[in-house]
Each structure stands twice: as structure tokens, then as C-alpha cells.
């Protein structure tokens, strides 16, 4: 049973007003905002629009019935969380905040008529449109890989069935097998994610299949929180993890899925389990609607996250080009608040408050060993820029209590962002 409505999206009055070309009747209450995508970006935007101005009519369009978060999905792989515990309903947005939830797939944006069309043909007129579609995987970015091949070689870069598949493969592999994790070049969703994933797979292997090894075949020569991760691996999983940088032959050139073999710069490697994380672009609707640049991501005004390509359209989260901010759930949450403030002020004829952005990302090396990166950001002449002399990563030298404390804060952060986006 679903609590979403597929039809009857508009009240009869609003629909009639639109048909008769009198959108101001429907707008009398404060304006109509349609949001595409119910992840951390879209859900936070919906909640904060209602917080800042309850009279705004907010409609959230989302394809999936529930939200399986990418953050904490690595803990499912490590066996310290189950999928159920990272699966959330969006009902509180409707019940507590009056957001209209529409289950459907955004297919096209008519910028001149200010209308979003869904796959089932329904058109949703808007005064402001927030596009938060996350990422699209470029399977073709790795020769030999495909959406079909992901049934055998999971990417697990969208949480859910892919996460469960990779977990099952880890459980089924023999002790002594090799696991390959292959992260893409920048930019991509969740820069520390592949390395936290390696940590969590190592946690599982160390405890259940201690003769096994992990090989990271990286397209890059450096990665997020690198010093912290590598020091953590050395102390917690000595000899278990090998990282091969792109410059040392780590870049994947081709995959032979049938033979579970990867061809990289250094040669061929066969593995029991392969986790291939392909390159990415902005979510399909952003690309199809012409909101993206040649690089596949959407350029935005750093003050408001308004699209550079379409009036009254905002792009937030992974899909956007956000300057110094990473593609993370925290960043999307923060950008959503800025957009909500900008839209609510604009619809009320007021000046929005100065934008401030924030990002905090925790990673677990073990269940009791957390590390973090944090940053505060402001709009600048060259895009969103980090406030100098602030933020940064956890100290390189810290005792076990400190790491344990950050592991506790990892749990706290998750509960916090869930409450802040969906509560």
C-alpha cells in the first residue's frame, strides 16, 4: 500500500485555475514549489520551505516508495547495520509539514510554461522548481560494464538492492579470495565513500575471512581523507588492503564480467568479488532538461543555487556544480536550506538572508574508529568557496578515545540528518 497519490495531484480549484490561465488564484497562498527527488537534498528543501513559509504549496516528486540512504549503506556491507535500519519513509513530510508527496518519475521540464511533466503524463505547474535528482551512472564509462553487468558486478553506488547484492557476494566468497574495489575519477558522489567501503569490507573479512585481501584499483592518484584512511588501515587491518593509484597502473581499462577479471594499467587481476563504481553525471532529468554543462553537471549561481540555464529552476545536491563543496548528503542538505530560504524570501518579496553552506562527513574505519571532514562555505566570485582557516579533517594524531568519540558522532550525525530532512 502506498501513501502517495498518482492522480488528483492538484486540487480541483487549482487545476481549473491553471486551465483557465489564472495561476494567481492557486498562488494566493504563497506560491507553488515543485521538487524533483526525495533524497537528502529534495526532502530537506521540502521541509524547510514549509518551515520558512507554511503557505507555500510544496509538491515532492519521487520515484521510489521508500528512501534507502547511501550514507550508512557501507555499514550494511560491513555487517554492522541492516538495510531496514537505513530505509526511511517520507510520510512525516506530509503528515507534519503538509508537503504533497507524488510518486512518479520526472520526465521533462517545460521551462517556458513552468511545468514539470511526469512519465505517466501528469503535468505539475510550478512557480519555482527545485531539481535534486542525484546521479546517473555512466556504465559505458568502463568498457565491458553495463547496467546488466551490474547484476554480476555491483556498483552499489545507489543504495538498496545493489547493496544487498554486494553483501551477499561478500558472504558467499571463499576465505582467501580477492575483493576488488574500483573507484572512479573525480568528481563523483561521496568522495570518501569508496574508502569507507573498503574499511567496512575489511572489517567483515578480518572477522570472518581473514585470509582474504582487498585490492583498490583507483582511477585517481589521491583521495579524500587519504592520510587518515591509510593510517587507520595500517593499524586496524595490517596487510589486508592494497591501494593502487592511477599513476601506478590502478586505473581500470576494461572489465571481463564473465571471467570476473579486470584489466588495469598494471595488468590483469581476477577476483572473487568486484565492486566497480563507474563515472557519473547529474541525474537524468537534469541532463534531459538541458540543465547540465558538457561535463554532465549543472552549473548554478553560488548565491542561490539557481540554474544557470533555466529561470525559476534550482539545482541542488550531487547534480550541481557546487565549487568547493563535495557531492554529499550533508552538502545537499545545506544547499537545500539555502534554496528554501531564497525561494521563500523571493515569493514574499523580501531579500534572502546571506547564504552559508556547511558540510560534515563522517567515515568509519572500524565500528569504534571514526574520522571526519567538515567545512563551512560562502558564495564567492568563482563559486562556492570554503571559509579560510576553518574546517578540515580529523587530526592525524589522536588516541582511541578520540576515534571512538567520532564513531559515536557518526551515529549522531545520521540520526541528525534524518530528523533534519525527513522528521
Amino acid at each position, binding site marked *: 500500500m502506498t501513501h502517495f497519490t498518482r492522480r488528483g495531484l492538484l486540487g480541483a480549484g487549482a487545476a481549473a485555475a491553471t486551465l483557465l490561465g489564472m495561476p494567481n488564484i492557486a498562488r494566493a497562498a504563497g506560491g507553488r514549489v515543485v521538487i524533483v527527488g526525495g533524497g537528502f537534498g529534495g526532502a530537506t528543501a521540502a521541509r524547510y520551505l514549509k518551515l*520558512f513559509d507554511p503557505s507555500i504549496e510544496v509538491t515532492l516528486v519521487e520515484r521510489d516508495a521508500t528512501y534507502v540512504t547511501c550514507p550508512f549503506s557501507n555499514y550494511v556491507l560491513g555487517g554492522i547495520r541492516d538495510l531496514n535500519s537505513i530505509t526511511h519513509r517520507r510520510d512525516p513530510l506530509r503528515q507534519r509539514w503538509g508537503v504533497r508527496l507524488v510518486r512518479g518519475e520526472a520526465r521533462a521540464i517545460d521551462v517556458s510554461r513552468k511545468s514539470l511533466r511526469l512519465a505517466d503524463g501528469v503535468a505539475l505547474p510550478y512557480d519555482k522548481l527545485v531539481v535534486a535528482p542525484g546521479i546517473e551512472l555512466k556504465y559505458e564509462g568502463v568498457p565491458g560494464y553495463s547496467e546488466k553487468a551490474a547484476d554480476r558486478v555491483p556498483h552499489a553506488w545507489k543504495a538498496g538492492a545493489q547493496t544487498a547484492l554486494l553483501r551477499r557476494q561478500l558472504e558467499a566468497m571463499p576465505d582467501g579470495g580477492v575483493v576488488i574495489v574500483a573507484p572512479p575519477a573525480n568528481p563523483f558522489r561521496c568522495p570518501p565513500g569508496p574508502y569507507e567501503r573498503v574499511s567496512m569490507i575489511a572489517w567483515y573479512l578480518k572477522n570472518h575471512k581473514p585470509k582474504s585481501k582487498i585490492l583498490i584499483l583507483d582511477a585517481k592518484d589521491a583521495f579524500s581523507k587519504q592520510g587518515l584512511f591509510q593510517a587507520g588501515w595500517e593499524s586496524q587491518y595490517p596487510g589486508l588492503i592494497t591501494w593502487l593509484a592511477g599513476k601506478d597502473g590502478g586505473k581500470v581499462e576494461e572489465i571481463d564480467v564473465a571471467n570476473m577479471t579486470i584489466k588495469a594499467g598494471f595488468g590483469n587481476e581476477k577476483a572473487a568479488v568486484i565492486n566497480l563504481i563507474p563515472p557519473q553525471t547529474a541525474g537524468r532529468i537534469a541532463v534531459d532538461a538541458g540543465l547540465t554543462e558538457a561535463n554532465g553537471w549543472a552549473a548554478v549561481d553560488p548565491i542561490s543555487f539557481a540554474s544557470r540555464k533555466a529561470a525559476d529552476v534550482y539545482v541542488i545536491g550531487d547534480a550541481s556544480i557546487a565549487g568547493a563543496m563535495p557531492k554529499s548528503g550533508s552538502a545537499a542538505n545545506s544547499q537545500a536550506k539555502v534554496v528554501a530560504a531564497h525561494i521563500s524570501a523571493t515569493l514574499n518579496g523580501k531579500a534572502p538572508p546571506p547564504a552559508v553552506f556547511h558540510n560534515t562527513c563522517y567515515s568509519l574505519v572500524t565500528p569504534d574508529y571514526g574520522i571526519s571532514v567538515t567545512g563551512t562555505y560562502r558564495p564567492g566570485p568563482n563559486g562556492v568557496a570554503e571559509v579560510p582557516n576553518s574546517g578540515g579533517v580529523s587530526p592525524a594524531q589522536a588516541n582511541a578515545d578520540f576515534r571512538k568519540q567520532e564513531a559515536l558522532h557518526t551515529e549522531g550525525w545520521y540520526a541528525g540528518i534524518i*530528523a533534519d530532512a525527513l522528521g
Partner: protein
Amino acid sequence: MSRISLAGAAFALALAAQFGFAPQAAMAQQAPKPGELTEAAFTAQTCALCHGTPSQTPPTMPLIYGSNADQLYTTLLDLKANRRPSTIMGRIARGFTDDQLKAVADYLARY
């Protein structure tokens, strides 16, 4: 037990004891009036990412809503200057001017 651990694990309890927070359940997320979103009110929304909302603050995170404004401001300045050890909050506090921290502390005290 190390200094860090004291500052961390007991931080939430210490804050609560020090500032005499109001019960969480009694607080709703304070909505600014439409179109009257001040810089302080907006900046304060940033905190919710990790600290949760006034009605849903995670048990492992310090409760910041409804705190004493002066004491919270002093704490933030101490964190910023590393006079008070922290895992992450010092790094975050250094992203704001003293005036911005004061305004946020004042706003959070209104819950």
C-alpha cells in the same frame, strides 16, 4: 580516561547540566515568520545537520536548543580558540566570526 574523551562523551551531559536545557519534547522547531528570515535564524538552521531538530536531538549529540545564550556563546568561543578540546566543533566554529557565533547562540537560546 583522556581529556578528549571527557570533553566528548560527557559533553552532552555536561552541557545539559550546565545550561539547564528545557525538555526536548516541549519544543517545536521554531519557524521564523514568512519573509522574516534573519541571518542569525538562517545560520542557526545549519546546526540541525548533526544536532538534529529541537524535538529530535540524537542522544550522542550535545543539545543546543534552548541553551543559555551567554554560556553557549562562551563555549563556542572556547571551542573556536581550542581552549576547550573537541573532536570537530572547533574546526566548525572557526568558520564563523565571533559576531556570527553570538547571533547564533542568541537565536538558539530562544527555543
